[in-house]
């Protein structure tokens, strides 16, 4: 083969190696990452090296050899680094720079020093062999880990190149075949292998990247679907629990509704009888009617509260005043408190304690905890529930401490696990739903025995800064 022909073949190889990374860059436009960039840079450096070999006259002879060798070396490093980065175990880039410099110095040394011809001849293919085996190793690892055909193609192509290097080294070092003139042996085999490696490697890389992204998309879609499903299920469960909780306070609500209804009926009948007997003057009639309107509004505010409480709804985050929420829930259980002679202490705090969250779901948590406390204190004589609302370091803490018997250790361990209950008619979901709701609000629920006896539940939620509440 003439020098001319060999030059052309190197140029065409270089062109292919130049086009392929550009192709990758275009094809993987949506998946561009440092891995892709490193791979393309590696290929481009390889193409640059081939161009230099193909056009020996471009650079002065002294620099030419070193530059082409260095570019080859760096090209391999980039490709290895791309694969390592893909597996999240990259080398430090500064070590890559040191290695490149070291290789250049070693190569220059072998060129300057006399009597190291064999070493100089063997250095390039030897280093190339080590680097190629690295590529093969990592590609093989990826292929095995991810069942990737693309990675397998990369491994195969570079294994062939490695085999070629072994052949060159063998020719060099085994005395029977004699030393070869140059490492850049322009044999047909070499060209074919180079082309094959470049093609297989780059196509394999595209395959690997596409497989990867497809896999990620599938994972992400599945994860999203799972999350959505869990959220829907969670909301449904929370809604069911609210309805159940509502059922348990229905007696209390009936009483609450009955009071204004009684006032309305009596007021309306007084007005009717008074008017029929002509014993009412207009001022008295107006007064009675005003009272009726006022009581009708009382009813409508109660029914409104019920509706919002049991309506299945998407969580709707807004600033929620924990103090107000707690007082509303205390009103809901007022009748139970009265009936069982339970004293409640809830000192007024003055300023609202604002957190960000869904008002209904947070009400539900408070109601659940209150109901547990009410049930617990029924087991003892001195029945009291102490509620404290405090702020500590950006966190609102609602502490509900009952005078009940507290938890025995086994129960304390399992409380909050779904379907675990100590109650005959309980579902065992109250506490776990509360915990789930609170964790969705970046909060937490801590259940423990209080020092002076009884159980204590701390509901912790991140406080809303004053500025955020206004926004």
């Amino acid at each position: 083969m003439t020098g001319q022909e060999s030059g052309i073949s190197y140029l065409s190889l270089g062109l292919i190696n130049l086009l392929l990374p550009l192709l990758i860059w275009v094809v993987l436009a949506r998946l561009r990452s440092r891995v892709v960039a490193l791979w393309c840079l590696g290929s481009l450096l390889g193409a640059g090296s081939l161009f230099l070999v193909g056009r020996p006259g471009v650079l002065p002879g002294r620099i030419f050899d070193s530059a082409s060798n260095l570019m080859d070396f760096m090209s391999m490093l980039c490709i290895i680094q791309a694969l390592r980065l893909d597996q999240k175990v990259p080398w430090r880039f500064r070590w890559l720079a040191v290695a490149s410099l070291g290789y250049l110095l070693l190569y220059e040394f072998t060129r300057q020093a006399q009597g190291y011809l064999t070493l100089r001849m063997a250095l390039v293919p030897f280093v190339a062999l080590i680097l190629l085996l690295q590529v093969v190793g990592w590609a093989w690892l990826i292929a095995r880990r991810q069942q990737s055909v693309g990675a397998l193609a990369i491994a195969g192509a570079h294994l062939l190149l490695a085999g070629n290097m072994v052949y060159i080294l063998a020719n060099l070092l085994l005395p029977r075949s004699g030393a070869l003139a140059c490492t850049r042996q322009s044999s047909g085999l070499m060209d074919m292998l180079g082309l094959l490696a470049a093609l297989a490697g780059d196509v394999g890389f595209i395959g690997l990247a596409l497989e990867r992204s497809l896999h990620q998309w599938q994972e992400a879609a599945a994860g999203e679907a799972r999350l959505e499903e869990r959220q829907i299920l969670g909301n449904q469960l929370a809604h069911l629990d609210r309805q159940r909780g509502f059922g348990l306070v229905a007696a209390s609500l009936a009483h609450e509704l009955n009071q204004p209804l009684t006032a309305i009926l009596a007021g309306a009948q007084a007005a009717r009888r008074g008017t029929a007997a002509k014993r009412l003057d207009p001022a008295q009639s107006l007064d009675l009617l005003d009272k009726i309107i006022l009581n009708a509004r009382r009813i409508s505010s109660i029914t409104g509260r019920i509706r919002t409480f049991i309506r299945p709804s998407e969580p709707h985050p807004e600033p929620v005043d924990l103090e107000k929420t707690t007082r509303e829930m205390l009103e809901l259980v007022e009748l139970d408190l009265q009936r069982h002679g339970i004293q409640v202490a809830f000192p007024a705090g003055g300023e609202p304690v604002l957190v960000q969250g869904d008002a209904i779901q947070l009400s539900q948590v408070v109601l659940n905890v209150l109901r547990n406390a009410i049930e617990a204190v029924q087991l003892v004589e001195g029945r009291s529930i102490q509620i404290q609302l405090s702020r500590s370091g950006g966190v609102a803490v609602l502490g509900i401490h009952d005078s009940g018997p507290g938890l025995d250790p086994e129960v304390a361990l399992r409380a909050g696990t779904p379907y675990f209950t100590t109650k005959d008619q309980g579902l065992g979901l109250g506490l776990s739903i509360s915990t789930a709701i609170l964790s969705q609000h970046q909060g937490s629920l801590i259940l423990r025995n209080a020092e002076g006896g009884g159980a204590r539940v701390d509901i912790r939620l991140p406080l809303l800064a004053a500025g955020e509440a206004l926004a």
Partner: protein
Amino acid sequence: MRPVSAILRTKGVPEVWSSAELVERCHRGRIILVDDDDEILAAFTSLLELEGYACEAFSSALDYLGQLGAPRRCPPGPCCVLLDVMMPDLDGLEAQRRLAGLDDTPLLLMSGASGVQEAVTAFRAGALDFLIKPIEAETLLEAVEKALAVSRARQATRARTQDQSRRLAALTPREHDVAVRVARGKLNRVIGEELGLALRTVKLYRQRCLEKLEARSTADLIRILQEEDP
């Protein structure tokens, strides 16, 4: 008639009535309302006052019990208590128990939650009626009228017994001895023998007893003594 609104906002006996009107209303009937809900107190007060009754309103049973001991002058007339069962500080049934030892004012209980158990307890403890909220005006007025009738009867009985006690106290010991024996159906002769009195003296005492006790006949005398010492 005064505007109801002026009356509604006061607790206890309203100050706004003239004494003549208060006397008239109290004569018709005084109703003591105890409910923790101010709106209900106001509505019942309007309804009852429009019917010509006098109302006293208390928003807790403790308030009502607290002022019972204090001496108050109230125009004469029947009186009843309308007591809510479900109240925070002291519930109606407990208030009923405490009231039982204090006076005999007829009691009406009312409740929103129609617990059978509560009603039974209330009736056993002597409640005249157990009204379920919301209460129809007619039901309420009927129950109130019934309770006031009971109150009137009780007051009349009490007045009569007081009168009789006063009259019995006017008897001398000897006359009392004779009266007791007459009431037991003993003959004058037997009484004379028992007490060591002449028959004529017994007859004289017996006549004085009838006069002092304002009894029209021996049968009347027997009834009076039996009522006094059954």
